[in-house]
């Protein structure tokens, strides 16, 4: 067995970043990204999500798709915490450009096992500069 394969077998944890840059219902990208995130989370990897450009619209609160005949998948973001996905990086510049504030987004939380299961926010507002650094430190980047 090669060294690489051995590492895999022993369960190396890699940093997986899912980059979301599209609005939720105009194309299928956003829903597909969320499906893939949930798959990645099931394999106990170090998963984080980035929301850039129109991707920030995916997290808007009060989404109601009743009259367009498409499933509202936004509640699924609320389940990410249960899969230990607690790092949702939202770019401040993208929010500003679209007239959005933190109040306009869903309230997403996770429970910190190491801190008496305290509920903590999953959404982290970061600057474009911070986003550059975060993107530069990943093992795998999946862009949607």
């Amino acid at each position: 067995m090669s060294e690489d394969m051995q590492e895999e077998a022993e369960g190396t944890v890699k940093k997986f970043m899912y980059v979301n840059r599209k609005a939720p219902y105009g194309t299928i990208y956003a829903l597909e990204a969320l499906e893939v995130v949930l798959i990645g989370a099931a394999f106990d990897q170090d998963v984080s999500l980035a929301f850039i450009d129109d991707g920030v619209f995916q997290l808007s609160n009060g989404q109601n798709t009743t009259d367009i005949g498409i499933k509202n998948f936004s509640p699924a973001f609320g389940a990410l915490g249960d899969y230990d996905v607690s790092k949702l990086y939202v770019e401040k510049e993208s929010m500003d450009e679209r007239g959005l504030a933190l109040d306009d987004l869903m309230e997403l939380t996770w429970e910190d096992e190491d801190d008496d299961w305290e509920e903590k926010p999953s959404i982290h507002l970061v600057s474009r500069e911070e986003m550059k650094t975060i993107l530069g430190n990943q093992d795998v980047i999946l862009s949607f």
Partner: protein
Amino acid sequence: MSILHTVNKSPFQKNDLESCLAHVNSNDAVLLIEDGVYGAISGTRFSVLTSSSDADIYCLKADLDARGIDPDKLTDGVKLIDYDGFVDLVAQNDAVNSWL
């Protein structure tokens, strides 16, 4: 850590190239492929962005040739590569971010 970014959309149609260039670190590489090669043409509103980027910008010759773009028309500093060069870039960098 270094990332290879690939962009395959025309910047005149989509903001992928602009957003990509706003998120690259200086040790990264950007490769323009398919319709992304339109972003390598000089004298457009994107040539300032590509020429001032900290990252190295590459352009795939096959896609440039297919679209009849003369390599002389490329923005200064954009490096022309073939498929072997593409493979080298993938091998040289730690991860690939394919902007979609």
